[in-house]
């Protein structure tokens, strides 16, 4: 394809992505290298409906001047990346020198917010992705073999976990898995344990979040594989059948290779989205037991009365780098395929 044709075809898409994603990313990187100006505090007296008391407040004029001079703040280099709420370089090395056993060192490290979140995020990603891939493919094959009249309703029902708004969906599930809710009470009866509570135990909360993740993402993998199954060339399948291949052999040698690009694609998207897991943690109020990288960003930006843009920016950068690392094997494969197919 000529360069100029390519340019015109991709221009609208590229413009939007540069304006709304690329430029903000640059701005976020810059912001993550800065911290706020030193705040000038004055002691003052504050009065409210309940009385007066001494308090501290900001010297507005001094702050205005500082902000005018240097709107970005003070340059901090990689200071934000190495502070306690990110890589915690100082704390980790101190823990290393002080600890007497690896277990002790590990516990100290897990006490740090970033590493706590990273552990859950990676576990979640590694568990949920393969389950969604395999189960989605299995369901797609199963639905493909259904009689035609059942296909429509089945497809709709299979899409439900993805269609229902996560906000309310997770709230309803939150109440259902509660010890007094239908799922929670049934589980208590199955395991014959009246004090079994999914919300009180960290490991059970992790499992609950991962099950939710699989449930919520399965429709995505299902629909992509289902669409892909419709495009399997019938002649090759028939030829294989004539040659005497059974179902498994046909699956392994014809269907799966044909669907490989889709498998790669789904794996890419799943790894990326699972690494950025966030809504279930808020929906299930699970942050007592599980936090994730995106949750830390949410906490920095929206939960405190003082949005910490630099800190959130640093965590965002670390999320992107984490995703790239996670995707490297898939990317190498795509690179190889690109060279095979394209040129």
């Amino acid at each position, binding site marked *: 394809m000529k360069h100029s044709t390519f340019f015109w075809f991709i221009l609208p898409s590229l413009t939007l992505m540069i304006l709304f994603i690329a430029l*903000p990313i640059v701005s976020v990187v810059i912001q993550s290298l800065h911290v706020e100006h030193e705040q000038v505090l004055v002691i003052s007296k504050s009065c409210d409906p309940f009385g007066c008391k001494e308090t501290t407040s900001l010297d507005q004029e001094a702050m205005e001047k500082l902000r005018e001079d240097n709107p970005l703040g003070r340059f901090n280099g990689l200071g934000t990346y190495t502070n306690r709420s990110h890589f915690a370089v100082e704390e980790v090395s101190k823990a290393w020198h002080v600890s007497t056993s690896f277990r002790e060192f590990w516990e100290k490290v897990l006490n740090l917010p970033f590493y706590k979140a990273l552990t859950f995020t990676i576990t979640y990603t590694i568990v949920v992705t393969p389950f969604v891939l395999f189960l989605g493919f299995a369901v797609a094959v199963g639905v493909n073999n*259904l009689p035609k009249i059942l*296909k*429509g309703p*089945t497809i709709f*029902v299979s899409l439900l976990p993805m*269609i229902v708004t996560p906000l309310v969906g997770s709230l309803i599930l939150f109440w259902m898995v509660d010890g007094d809710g239908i799922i929670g009470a049934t589980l208590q009866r199955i395991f014959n344990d009246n004090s079994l509570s999914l919300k009180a135990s960290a490991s059970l909360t992790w499992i609950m979040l991962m099950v939710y993740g699989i449930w919520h993402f399965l429709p995505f993998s299902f629909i992509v594989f289902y669409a892909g199954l419709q495009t399997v060339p019938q002649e090759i399948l028939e030829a294989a059948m004539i040659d005497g291949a059974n179902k498994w052999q046909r699956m392994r040698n014809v269907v799966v290779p044909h669907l490989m690009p889709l498998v790669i694609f789904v794996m890419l998207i799943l790894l990326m989205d699972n690494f950025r897991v*966030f809504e279930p943690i808020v929906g299930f109020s699970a942050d007592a037991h599980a936090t994730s990288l995106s949750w830390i960003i949410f906490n920095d930006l929206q939960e405190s009365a003082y949005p910490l843009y630099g800190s959130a920016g640093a965590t*965002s950068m670390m999320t992107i780098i984490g*995703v790239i690392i996670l995707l490297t094997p898939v990317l190498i494969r795509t690179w190889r395929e690109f060279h095979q197919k394209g040129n």
Partner: protein
Amino acid sequence: MTILKAQSRITFLSIFSFSMVATWLFIAAFPFVWTLWGSFKVQADFFSKADWTYAIYGVHTTLETGKAFTGGGYYGAWIQEGFYNAVMNSSIVIFFTVVISLTFGTLGGYALARSGYRYAFWILMAALVFRAMPHITLVSGYLFPFFEWNIWGILPTTIIVLVAINQPFTLWILHSFFLNIPREMDESAMVDGCTRFQAFRHVIIPVMWPGVITTGLFSFLLAYNDFAVTTMLLSGENETMVPAIASFMGNVQQEGNVMFAVAAVVSTTAPLFLLVLFFQRQIVSGLTAGAVKG
């Protein structure tokens, strides 16, 4: 044909496959069915801490309204809170997001699939990196410029933002589908004298429907379900469905009207049932048509 028919014997495998699909359908549908049933109850039943079976029998609903079923949630959401306004806004946002997303995405995806140069691969990589950026950070960054230029709180801004954020995904999935369409098709058209764009329009567009429908579905779901972007960029009269539902929920100091939210969720999911039911014939025929032509 006869070969295929011969394969449809009932085997152990087909029973296993059938029951697996049935189990999945139960798991997928049960929470929604439970919600549908519970949307006709009051909060004390559906979210009961006393006994979950209240949700089935409607104990408090009978106490408070005289009957075991109540339309209170629906009335509150649609009439009292004017939820139809949010649905209208959502429809506008969804329609334009899908149309614009697909238009830009098919053009870009096609270019990326046919390019053959290395920079196409790097653009795809860049798109991947873009997609990895958490949405909260992006949207928080948008607030200051949008307020400054006075474009906050209006639907077009939200539409453009949703399209932009979704472009990486759209490009990837469409380029993947386009790779599966043989080069010979459009190349032979160009040999016959068409420009690249004419080849795209007359040869590729008729066969690209499976990919477009699938991508359109995801764009639709993104615009429909999005919370992070819409809740920060819209307010009041312009709110779409999800932030409107969120506003029914109350906060730590004030009780909200959770049943309004539940009713709203059910009433917006149910029509999709009809949509997909109607659509599924198009989906399946579109997909298989693509298969035959390919």
